[in-house]
């Protein structure tokens, strides 16, 4: 029998009635397969047989859980909500749409220094980036720099497809609603010297490499980005056109990493997105030493209307990503439950085995 025999073959090769009138005997082949006598492992699920599984699960999961928990706990993370809905918040003033360039500053203190690379996120809550019509509202060919798609974006982008008879350059609702606050971080190095030291924030390297280099491309054409985007218009909500997202030509237009990150729609209404990288300087100094900082926010993005929240998050990461105590706890919990059930089964099995032995005799 062929080793690659699978169910499909049976379907094709198994017409029930062989063509009649065959001279040879119709005796079926006495093979293990055809007689359904394939050697088989026949597990029987009883307390006795399942018991080891539970213990093994328990024994494996609990250490993993502890490991994850510890790792997660070692991650430093600080979260600053700057939505400004509370009257006391410095950003409260920006809630009214009248103040157009509204800049607010929030002070915070790091109790412990952050070591290694520090990631700066902005987090949004109650923001349904996974809404069905929202998710669809983009044109990947346009983002990939396809010239025809640039001028004639996909229908999916409606109603953010054209504005004033011009195609919108990154069309669609996702692009239109791009996060456009600017966050800056300053360290107040010592009390005596009030001049804040700006923390260098790296703009590049926050998006997936493939996105930046493969998926998103600026349209071909002349040297000048503006020329390449000629004939298009900026999304309605945007302040500046797409080619002016950044001064660096490698980080402007569709390949702007903030834009790329934004275009990767979040799975859940509460999410964070990577905003900047704070690279560690050298081994001697922590990336973000403990101390007082203040966050400078250019407040553009309105979330309070739909009860959304905005946050700035600073976090170090471990091998398993950001801080998330859940997984460790879950592992520990499942492991212990499994262990417990194992014990229950052990008791049952012990009680039952005496009886089952006698049962065997009668059988």
């Amino acid at each position, binding site marked *: 029998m062929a080793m690659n025999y699978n169910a499909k073959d049976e379907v094709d090769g198994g017409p029930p009635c062989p063509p009649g009138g065959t001279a040879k005997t119709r005796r079926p082949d006495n093979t293990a397969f055809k007689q359904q006598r394939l050697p088989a492992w026949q597990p029987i699920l009883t307390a006795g047989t399942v018991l080891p599984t539970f213990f093994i699960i328990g024994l494996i999961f609990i250490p993993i859980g502890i490991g994850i928990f510890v790792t997660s706990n070692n991650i430093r993370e600080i979260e600053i909500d700057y939505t400004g809905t509370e009257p006391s918040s410095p950003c409260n003033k920006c809630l009214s749409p009248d103040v157009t360039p509204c800049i607010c500053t929030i002070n915070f203190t790091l109790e412990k220094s952050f070591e290694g690379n520090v990631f700066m996120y902005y987090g949004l809550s109650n923001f349904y980036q996974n809404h069905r019509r929202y998710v669809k509202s983009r044109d990947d060919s346009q983002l990939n720099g396809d010239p025809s798609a640039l001028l004639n974006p996909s229908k999916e982008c409606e109603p953010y497809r054209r504005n004033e008879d011009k195609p919108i350059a990154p069309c669609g609702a996702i692009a239109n609603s791009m996060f456009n606050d600017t966050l800056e971080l300053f360290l107040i190095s010592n009390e005596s010297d009030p001049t804040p030291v700006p923390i260098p924030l790296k703009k590049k390297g926050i998006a997936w490499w493939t996105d930046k280099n493969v998926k998103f491309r600026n349209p071909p054409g002349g040297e000048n980005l503006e020329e390449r985007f000629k004939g298009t218009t900026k999304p309605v909500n945007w302040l500046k056109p797409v080619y002016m997202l950044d001064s660096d030509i490698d980080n402007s237009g569709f390949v702007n990493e903030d834009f790329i990150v934004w275009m990767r729609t979040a799975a859940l209404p*509460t999410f964070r997105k990577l905003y900047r990288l704070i690279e560690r300087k050298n081994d001697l100094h922590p990336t973000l030493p403990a101390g007082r900082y203040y966050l400078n926010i250019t407040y553009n993005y309105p979330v309070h209307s739909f009860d959304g929240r905005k946050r700035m998050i600073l976090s170090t990461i471990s091998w398993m990503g950001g801080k998330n105590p859940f997984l460790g706890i879950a592992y520990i919990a499942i492991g212990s439950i499994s262990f417990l059930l194992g014990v229950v089964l052990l008791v049952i099995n012990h009680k039952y085995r005496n009886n089952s032995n006698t049962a065997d005799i009668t*059988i």
Partner: protein
Amino acid sequence: KNLFEQFHRLANVYFVFIALLNFVPAVNAFQPGLALAPVLFILAVTAFKDLWEDYSRHRSDHEINHLGCLVFSREEKKYVNRFWKEIRVGDFVQLRCNEIIPADILLLSSSDPDGLCHIETANLDGETNLKRRQVVRGFSELVSEFNPLTFTSVIECEKPNNNLSRFHGCIIHDNGKKAALYKENLLLRGCTIRNTEAVVGIVIYAGHETKALLNNSGPRYKRSQLERQMNCDVLWCVLLLICMSLFSAVGHGLWIQRHQEKKALFDVPESDGSALSPVTAAVYSFLTMIIVLQVLIPISLYVSIEIVKVCQVYFINQDIELYDEETDSQLQCRALNITEDLGQIQYIFSDKTGTLTENKMVFRRCTVSGIEYSHDANAQRLARYQEADSEEEEVVPRGNTVSQRGSIGSHQSIRIMSRSQSTRSHRRTGSRAEARRASILSKHTAFSSPMEKDITPDPKLFEKVSECDRCLAISRHQEHPLAHLSPELSDVFDFFIALTVCNTVVVTAPDQPRQKASCLKSPVKTIEDFLRRFTPSRLTSGCSSIGSLATNKSNHKSNPNFLPNLPNDSTLLGLEEKLDQSEPTIASNGFGTQSECWAPEQAREQKQVSEVEQERELRYEAESPDEAALVYAARAYNCALVDRLHDQVSVELPHLGRLTFELLHTLGFDSIRKRMSVVIRHPLTDEINVYTKGADSVVMDLLLPCSSGTPSPPHGHSPIRRTLLHLQGAALDPHSTACLVQVLSKEEYACWLQSHLEAESSVDNREELLFQSALRLETNLHLLGATGIEDRLQEGVPETITKLRQAGLQIWVLSGDKQETAINVAYACKLLDHGEEIITLNAESQVGGFGSSAPQEVTSQDWEPWSSWCLSPERVNPPGPCLVIDGRSLAYALEKNLEDRFLILAKQCRSVLCCRSTPLQKSMVVKLVRSKLKAMTLAIGDGANDVSMIQVADVGVGISGQEGMQAVMASDFAVPRFRYLERLLIVHGHWCYSRLANMVLYFFYKNTMFVGLLFWFQFYCGFSASAMIDQWYLIFFNLLFSSLPQLVTGVLDKDVPARVLLSEPQLYRSGQNMEEYRPCTFWLNMADAAFQSLVCFFIPYLAYYDSEVDMFTWGTPITAIALFTFLLHLGIETKTWTWLNWITCGFSILLFFSVALVYNASCATCYPPSNPYWTMQTLLGDPLFYLTCLIAPVAALLPRLFFKALQGSLFPTPLQLGRQSAKKTPKKLSTSKGNLAQEPLPRDQRTEDSEERTIGPSESLSGDFASQASWHTPQLACSPEASGEPSAVDMSVPVREDPLPEGLSAQTPESSTPGQDMPADCPGDSKRKPSSTGRAAPLSSLFNLPNFSSLNWISSLSLVSGLGSVLQFSRSGLQMDKRDGEFLSRPPQPDQDLHDLRGHATDYF
């Protein structure tokens, strides 16, 4: 066209609707083209399957339509070859020997000089014998060959109808004469011409108007019960889907309302910029949800089920144990979609002849003039064909129940063994196998299997025969040769002459089509010539078909004239004897060896073979198989029929040589007279003798009052009485026949002949008159002897029936035979037991008028006591009497107002026998049970008379034995023999059912769980019908990634090994009760799916909460988790892991990841909106992915595994126990069997039992009770397990209340738990139940499940049924499942006794 057909299926319409819905932009969820893919795939697969089926059907149609036959062409003035489909009404068709008749044809001419034509109607009514058809009167006189051009008559006949046994019409010749047409003139389509060289006829009905096709009601689309239930659950799923969609629609509406006025950034307005109103949004969301959640309706379920069924069918076909070596045929599954119904059958309706029995008659024994010749040797010979198997021994004592018969009993026991094992043994002995093969090759010459041919004569009788043979040979030249014989010997001689002569057997040599040619040996020829010269008008006296009165009168006159010739005749015979002198040496030699040495079997067999060779391999073809058997029997006594012409019969005797009897009349067999007679002139005595042969019951009334005309009885007792006694003893034989003789004086004969001829020549009510005339002749007969013939049961039938019974199947036998025969067969195949009460319903007597009121009275009279008896509380658990009902009563029972009552009664009965039922009645009974009892029915039959029944039943099984293919054609499954039914049902049926049930449940689980994931997500995406799982995964998940393992499991999973299933047929009940797939299991399953989806959704949700993960990067791990969960779940459900399971599981995972990787790498800008470029690759680098993938499936499946384990060890189902026992004790089983084989049954014990049993049926209740109880002893003794428990064997009836130490200590704890509960839980209940269980404990030493199931079956006490499902069964109880139940509920004992018992019982718990 096929597409159109497919859209008839609701499911397909639904899927296409969804796919089309997807094209509407406002609601589309997927890329429209992609959404169409699975639907197209499924349509394509179905189309392919249909195409294949259509093609094969077309091929067979084409084959039949293009069979050729010779049709007369007026243009060419000759017969030309035409296809069947071109035959029109009015065509003249010429048919030759062994051709199948293409249409209903009126026989106009036959090559047979008498205008006869033999046909075999096996294809039509299942009877293999040859039937005679006559040329239409008026054409038979034509000497020259029939010329269609000269045919000018007008034929009038009735409209096409489906009545096979009736045909009326008339033919008006051109001279104005009118001749009636009867069914004897009609050749029906589908029959085969036999023994007639060529016939010509005119087509009367062709094509669909033929009776055969009109009888063939079209096939019914069968849908299995499981499928029906599944469809119901699919509807539930639809409901669930709609609920989910509605819920999310409402949710979306609210959400939109809330966020719209707040101008949320993520709210996307309509394309024209206007805001979407919440209501429209809700409607859109609803539709989209339906698309997204369409997976809930398992699109691939139907396809998968079809695939699985095809594979199951393939495996059933391939099962080597269903392969019949003799006929070289394996089981055929003709219906692909009802395999799982095999596992749920509750009622089996079986035909008798040819299904339970072989339809081959074997000479069993005879009594001649009051002396019984028991033919021990014959029985022994039969017995010696097989080595006594241990299993056989089990059977013997049970069958051997009525021991009144003394020595007969022992025969019977041996015979039972012989029946069951004979065929297998044929293979063992070389020469026999060859003979067998030869008989298979020449299948169309019916009834010539070696079993029938080889009959060992009884030595005593043989001696007598040869003695009188010798005497006669010596004294033949004297005046009254017979007078020299003692009356007994003359009886013996006459008996054998009667056997040989009184029949319509046709002698053939194997190589020639008709026997005439074979008998052209010189001596006969000369004698014939001689006789013919001397009796020129003799020809006319013979056959009944001759109409002219005048010639007959002259013949009558000539009779005295040729009397003087007879001495001449006998001298000639003497001459002939001398010619034959060379032969007697061999013959006597043969006799010597036979009488002397019985022991050397081999020598005898060789001798017989040589004998057969000597006799030029004469073969007898008879209208009924028993005739042939009798002739073969006679031949064994060297009284061989060598030639039969229409007017003379030649018999060859070793000493006398060839005797030629002049055949004056043959009064054929009919079902009313139940006998046939021949009138012959005896060559030795020159007397005219009437030999009558008929069913014993009828013939006995015709007997001459004792010793009036016959010589005085040789012994004190009248031979008649003794013969009657023997016949009673023989009543267990299916067929017993008495042979009688009457000596007529010439005057009497002349007188009778006169009236007979008048009757024959009358046109109007000829049949009536002939009947009367026959009655007149058959009076005042002298009893010669009786024969016992048996229609051998098929191999393994009693065992199969016992097994099927144990499996909880009710077996009804619907037979066309007469009541006695049916009952006898039922006894023989253990359908009836002697201890049982038999309710016989015969409405015959009271049926004066056929008005509806009269039968109602009758039947209700009959039933009132019975039905009340059945329902009375006294008999909460009746032993299940047997109901025997005959055709006429059945007709009343099937009337609307009585059918319910009939069913109530029948339901209580252990077995039901319907005799004399027509095909229509059979199907009506099946239909009734099917519709009223809502039970799964299986009909099994082999002949065309079973076709309607087979078609009506849920599962129709045809036996593809020697009879025609009609039943097979109509059936869903065709098995070679009845005994294969056991394996088909108990093993394959169970497997198919459990596989499919599990698979369907798994499917529902899988889809619900998958949809659950999507549904939970809706809470986090504003109910916007968004899916976090990539549409590709969503669509192909069911189709590709997770389908293979479940298919393999669905095809190959064996919950219990075949060996255990066969040894413990009770396991079959799980299928009957639909244990694996019930509404509650369905909902439990759904609940588990919901739980699992919750776990699988929220673990990733929490793990990725507030992270930078994007939607589809998050959805992919969920998909992977779902896949792992499915596979693990399947792993928990799978009972046997073969390498195929492993491979497919691995393959699924591999496929998923490789597809994901390829898909994610293939295109950077394609597949909006997910655009999953490089997602999988990124995920594979993320440890979080692995961590979630590890924990989520485990967490999801922990509860299931835990509960499975708990259930497995605390409350195991019988199936699980069976599996456990199979695993634990594969060796034990075989050793215990081996023990039994070595350890012969204690002989004395058995006789003891039988002594006890004799009182049984006639006694009062307590006596009855005793007889019932006594059953257990042999059963225990012969059950393999019991041999390991000596105490159980020793225990007999009076001891049953005694404690049984070993037995009880061996009791399983499971059985004790319910036992404790029992008295506590139902104290108010009738004492009988607990106490009876209490009694069961010492008796069977164990509770067993069947007890309880049978208990609750009748009492329908929910409590008990609850216990029943919890209860253990134990193997040692197996042998007595039902009987225990009966026993337990046996009528009340003194109350005191009960209390004592209870005391005992509770002590032990």
